[in-house]
């Protein structure tokens, strides 16, 4: 029997979740799915794979959209930290977003972005997880505290004295211009 090429995954966090059909090559971006494929033979996989994470069907659909589009990209394996093109250890440098990735992330509202991050984390999809975190980091980069609160929709829970104290502490620390540290 030919190996199964279409996997069925169901959103089981809440009752009535949608069943998604995802190409195997796409689903293999997920570390969780890779593990299942290694541990069980195909006959077990004919059943529906439950996905139990607090994400809406809409959010999961976006995750599978990304996986399907990126199915031909190299998969990240167990040891796989995604590194820059020159394998540099400078870990906050922007990763490369393809044009498609850019459009994909730009079109997301903040709710969908957070759902994708949480689902990517649960399903262990390292490249999507990295891109998503990079996208959030890009939103924050170069912004003031007030702008970040606005962008991320966070209300300050500091009282003024606390905030002042922290600002004073921060003044002791200077910026790192060099980040060439290897760990």
């Amino acid at each position: 029997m030919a190996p199964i090429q279409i996997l069925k995954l169901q959103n089981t966090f809440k009752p009535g979740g949608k069943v998604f059909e995802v190409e195997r090559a796409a689903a293999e971006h997920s570390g969780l799915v890779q593990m299942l494929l290694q541990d069980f033979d195909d006959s077990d996989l004919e059943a529906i794979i439950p996905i139990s994470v607090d994400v809406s069907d809409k959010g999961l659909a976006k995750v599978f959209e990304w996986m399907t589009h990126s199915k031909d990209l190299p998969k990240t394996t167990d040891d796989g930290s995604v590194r820059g093109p020159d394998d540099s250890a400078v870990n906050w440098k922007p990763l490369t977003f393809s044009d498609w990735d850019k459009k994909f992330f730009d079109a997301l509202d903040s709710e969908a972005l957070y759902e994708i991050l949480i689902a990517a984390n649960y399903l262990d999809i390292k490249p999507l997880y990295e891109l998503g975190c990079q996208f959030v980091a890009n939103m924050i980069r170069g912004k003031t505290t007030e702008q970040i609160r606005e962008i991320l929709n966070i209300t300050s829970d500091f009282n003024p004295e606390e905030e002042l104290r922290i600002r004073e502490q921060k003044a002791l620390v200077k910026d790192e211009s060099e980040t060439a540290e290897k760990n």
Partner: protein
Amino acid sequence: MPPPGLEILPTELFICVIEKLSKADLKALSLVCKRCHTLVVQALWESVSIEPPEYSLHQIKAEAIPQARLQLARQLHFRADFLRFTDRRCPHEATDSSGGEFENESSSGDSEAEEEDREQWVGLPRFHQLARKTESVVKRLRPGQLHSFSWDLGTCVPSEVLGPPGAVPLNHPMLQSLALTTNPYCRDNRHPECEIDLSALRRLHSLRWKAPGAHHLNTLSSAIENNSGRLQDLELDFVNHLDFVTDMAPWLHRSEAEGDFGVAETWCANKLFGLSRQSPQPLFPAIRTLSLSQVPVVGAMAPAINFMTLRTLILRECPGWPEFLAHVTDLGLPVRLKKLEIQDHRWQKDLVGLSAMEGFLGAFQGLEELFVTQKRLLDPQRLLNSALHHRATLKRFIHPVPDALDDIPDDCWFYFFGSCDLEFIGRHCHPELLRPILRPFMSKDSLKVLHIRQPPFSLYDGYVSWAFKDTARLSFRDPDSDDGADQDVNRDVNGDDDEDDGRLRSWLRPQFIEFAEWAFGPQGIGSLQFLAFGKFAHGGRLPFGWRLRSASFILARGRGDGAGSAFRVLSERGPEARAMLEKYRDALEACPMDELLHPSMRDSDI
């Protein structure tokens, strides 16, 4: 339903975001809410930098760092600017602690605590003050806490810190990264109170030493030998090669040293790269970055380096580099370099260097960054032709020709720029000469940054600044107003763009403004994001003799609101400028025009 906030992100995702941000961003983020603060504090204090003012390097202020925060540090850095005081900056050279000219300058507005502090140190030589203060910081750390230590003050290092009984080697033998900027010009640099002993460090992945003295060569050599198998980054800058070789003479056997620099150079290369030892080949199996400035190299060094792993090779003013590159080519070593920088102002006499470059560049593909400076290019087109071998991958190209008119015909540049999708171009070229050869970038979207550098003197128009009016007096990077560690960090975030914009525009020549309007305008280069002008190496310090205090700036594409100018001036301390510098720093600082420690630059000259 309001969109969810960042607080719903699980901690591991939050940390993943934090890892991608710079310190300035983390500062802003830590004030957003309590949870952000808790998570950011750890990342923020992972690295602690202590920056005394350049004119008074013994004034280390670290008592105020809370012990609980200091214990989060994995990296400890002492660093200072090198803008005004270069060779005679060591506290050894200013033993008068009763308060000299610069002491008075800094004393205005000091708090009571600092007054007390001053009393405590009265009568103690400045170097002893430096030693006590730095030792006390290092001793507050738990043993084994540090992964990374740097001393970039450009002074002697107290033996309490790095000497045979020094706190760093003694307590942190697992250190992975060590960076030093010392001072070969200090008259007391051979005193036992500043002896350096690195023999306990055998886990180094990264070793950088700028401006060692000749008497440090044995220490350096054994540090390299003890760590060669692990070293991924090795960066050495001998600052002034000729001084170094002269200073080295007493350390050689007399017969070797007499009147023959060649012997000294070979000895130096042997000593550093283990050529005379029974060392394994390659000596550096894990090397990724090799950066040598003013370090003599010989062809026989080639097998010491694993070119399979080497990604970055920087050779600045290294005598013997053509033989070295030619030997790599002759041996047929597999080269996987991504970045190559060759700078040569003094020793280039004939076509040897060019032939070596041609052979080397022709022997592999995949180079992404190529930075080349040569004083006199006998046949400059040949260099461009060799570079074309890497046309598929080349992204950044820097080619400053310091004091010669560029005699490469326009159509040659035109072909080169047409063939390579460059993202970064750095050139010594008058804007008016640059404009026609940039035409290929009008119809593609690769070029993001254009860096125009100006040599101190150009055959095109002598000493006239290409960007600034003769009457411009710049002061917005005045070191006097920036005394380091105790500045309010909010300055970093809230740079006033409008003010800087107006001021800079009033200083710029109309021709330069016109060039920038063209470059960013509808008839210009649609992909261009930044136009950088001037020197960025050594914190933007200007060569001796240049009267303008600061001559570097960055213009960015305008906000496209239709009205007014096609560009805007980036505020120097603003977040955009910081992000830009982070991304392109290596290229902006490549091929520096002068040395980090400049022996001819005396305090009285400025």
